[in-house]
């Protein structure tokens, strides 16, 4: 998957792979928040998201010395690594069904209409976690990670049409779950 434009991360990754401390700091500053946000929204659990973000960066450090510019966009590769780690966690959760779902975000309507932004955030988190993982992934990649449809589809290994279908179904399900917030309470 070679892209025409130069990858803005290539140089940083190359230097980080050589042990350049400034490049390491810059790469972490540039990517950690994004990786953590992706993991948090895929898993709905802050502690697990931290573990995933840490492991994703450990993999970056292992691969950086052998990183070949132009073969793949670093950001896309990092998203793929993070998503794989998230799916590993989700699979483990399914294999241990007795485990309590993490954080148990509230998915029901609020008892009163005076919701704070944090409450709305928790409601959205709960609704997002209730989606099938592939719909959640599509929403997270396109809405939160701000990837284009083509890039997100490539990352998910589906056609753009399939991605749009996942997005459409996901948004419909979110609207249903958050219907009581439709009028901007």
């Amino acid at each position, binding site marked *: 998957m070679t892209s025409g434009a130069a990858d803005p991360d290539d140089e940083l990754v190359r230097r*980080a*792979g*050589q*042990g*350049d*401390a400034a490049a*390491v*700091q810059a790469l*972490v500053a540039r990517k*950690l*928040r994004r990786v*953590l*946000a992706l993991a*948090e*929204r895929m898993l709905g659990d*802050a502690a697990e*998201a*931290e573990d995933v*973000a*840490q492991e994703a*960066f*450990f993999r970056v*450090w292992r691969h*950086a*010395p052998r990183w070949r510019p132009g073969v793949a966009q670093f950001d896309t590769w990092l998203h793929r690594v993070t998503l794989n780690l998230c799916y590993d966690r989700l699979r483990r959760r399914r294999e241990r069904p007795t485990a309590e779902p993490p954080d148990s975000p509230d998915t029901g309507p609020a008892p009163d209409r005076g919701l704070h*932004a944090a409450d*709305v*955030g928790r*409601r*959205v*988190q709960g609704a*997002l976690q209730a989606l099938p993982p592939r719909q959640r992934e599509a*929403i997270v990649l396109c*809405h*939160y990670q701000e990837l284009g449809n083509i890039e997100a589809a490539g990352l998910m290994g589906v056609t753009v049409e399939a991605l749009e279908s996942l997005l459409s179904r996901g*948004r*419909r399900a*979110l*609207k*249903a779950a*958050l*219907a009581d*917030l*439709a009028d*901007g309470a």
Partner: protein
Amino acid sequence: MTEDMHDTRLDELLAAYEAPEPAAALRERIVAAAPRERAIGRTWRWIAGAGLGAVLAGSCAAGVAAGLTLAPASLARAITGRPAQPAADVSSLADPADDAAVS
């Protein structure tokens, strides 16, 4: 019921779910695990270079010493500039009494 909500309203709601800020401890753990091969490699390369240099210098010195030891006296004299020591005259050490006994 779901169609009651506009896309823009859903986007507003989605925006309320903010990403967590990375904890400083997480950042430190990640940075601490980053590669440091170059710094370590530079040290090892310096040590290896200095060691190799010392070994080569020692070998050269040993070679010169061996050469001077084994070279013919005239050549050694030419190299070192010192006169060769004459062979010891052992005849002066002979005991005249022994000569008398023989005769």
